[in-house]
């Protein structure tokens, strides 16, 4: 585990029974919802390792769905999430899977949003309710919810990274961590920036105007007990 804070150790305040299988799962679901950023029609949760073996008993299924519905891990409605999803017309499915060499508590969410766009979001619950989103649509990212996180999908061409980081500079936003990966030379690339402090939401609009940038996702920190 990297930079652990006091309220990661003593927290979250949550609905039981398992920090990694219930609270972490709720956070993973909520993070997936945030990444998609549009209403969700259906989710097929591919469950790996300990998630696969024990999800029913830990309410992991209820918690993942609660997160997709936007609930926090301390929301008392969490235990009724499956019924709430049904009432709202959200289709959910749980499929045991082998996702390869990943953390024991890992889920891949196959999501269809309201405009029929498909998403594949892979994340792990790494203990004590902490999470890490590791892949979006096959691209490696790192979202922990600890920092404000900015993700751009863009064409792999010179200058794009400089323009995006330039915009951060102009706004006096400090970049704490940075990760850049491309699927293939000259094709699509994905950049993850973890930023210090809060960021105004119109940053997204400005970065969207950078030539070659196809998608921008801004994720606020989860906060101590959220």
């Amino acid at each position, binding site marked *: *585990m*990297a*930079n*652990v*804070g*006091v*309220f*990661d*150790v*003593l*927290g*979250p*305040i*949550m*609905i*039981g*029974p*398992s*920090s*990694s299988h*219930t*609270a972490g799962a709720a956070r993973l679901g909520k993070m997936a919802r945030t990444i998609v950023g549009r209403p969700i029609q259906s989710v097929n949760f591919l469950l790996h*390792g*300990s998630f696969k*073996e*024990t999800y*029913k*008993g*830990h*309410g992991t299924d209820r918690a993942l769905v609660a997160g997709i519905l936007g609930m926090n891990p*301390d929301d*008392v409605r*969490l*235990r009724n999430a499956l019924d709430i999803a049904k009432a709202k017309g959200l289709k959910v499915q749980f499929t045991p899977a082998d996702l390869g060499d990943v953390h*024991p*508590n890992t889920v891949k969410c196959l999501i269809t949003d309201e405009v029929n766009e498909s998403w594949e979001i892979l994340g792990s619950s*790494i*203990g*004590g*309710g902490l999470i890490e989103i590791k892949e979006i649509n096959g691209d490696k990212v790192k979202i922990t919810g600890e920092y404000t996180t900015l993700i751009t999908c863009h064409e792999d061409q010179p200058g794009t990274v400089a323009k995006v980081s330039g915009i951060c500079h102009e706004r006096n936003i400090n970049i704490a961590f940075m990760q850049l990966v491309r699927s293939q030379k000259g094709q699509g690339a994905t950049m993850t920036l973890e930023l210090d*402090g809060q960021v105004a939401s119109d940053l997204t609009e400005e970065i969207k105007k950078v030539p070659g940038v196809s998608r921008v996702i801004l994720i606020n920190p989860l906060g*101590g*007990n959220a």
Partner: protein
Amino acid sequence: MRMAKSAIEMIEICEEMQISLSEYAIRREMEDRGVSREVLMEQMQETLDAMREGATLGREKAVYSLSGLIGGDAFRLEQYLASGKSLMGDGIIKAMAMALSSSEVNGAMGKIVACPTAGSCGILPAVILTAGEQLEKTDEELVMGLFAAAAMGLIIGQNATFSGAEGGCQAECGSAAAMAAGAVVELMGGSPAMSFDAGAIVFKNVLGLVCDPVAGLVEIPCAKRNASGAVSALATADLVMAGVGSHIPFDDALGAMYKVGKGLPEELRETALGGMATTPTGVALKNKVFGNA
């Protein structure tokens, strides 16, 4: 302020600056998150309140988990306490009752504080609240105790794991009891070095403890390991306050815990495929809950 990566570094920093573990955790968090001391105190008071609620509910009335596998034991202990017949005295019985209460509330999908995890949510509240009553501490002092526990937790989280799926029960209940013992040592006036000695002793005593939940639920044997962890923490605080040190320093003990945890077969790391979970009775209970008989 310099950020400690190990117990030995944290002890050095605390000695250099003449501060306690709790003060270290507060200053570090203020710096790291850019928030005021007041905000942190308030957040920790909320944490203490939630802990107290979880540690109390199951003692006032019998609380049963959703599966029905566990419940009513905290209430049983509370009545036993009232009978005045206990062998070990009120403090220990009350601590066990509080630990069981939190675990039962957790199994009932009620609200608890994961400290560090939900499976081990009973230990720190039971230890802090019991020690607080014995030592007649105010809530402000107990909040400081929680920060001291967190300071040790920062080192555990950085260098090992809290996850039963990665390190077995020793990483969950073991870490909780180590942090709790360290916190009580500070509440009793012990030094940061003494707190870490207490943590090291706790880890020694739980080394190899596997995670083997019956039916995959955080109930059997988890609730009783919370009771046991609370007793271990309180007893270890007394050991250390009597002047007993740890021959193996905290960083070594923690490293051993992590290495042993990673060496445990997958069956004994929260998968419910070994240990108590696969005993004939464990399997029968699983079938009873999920109807696979």
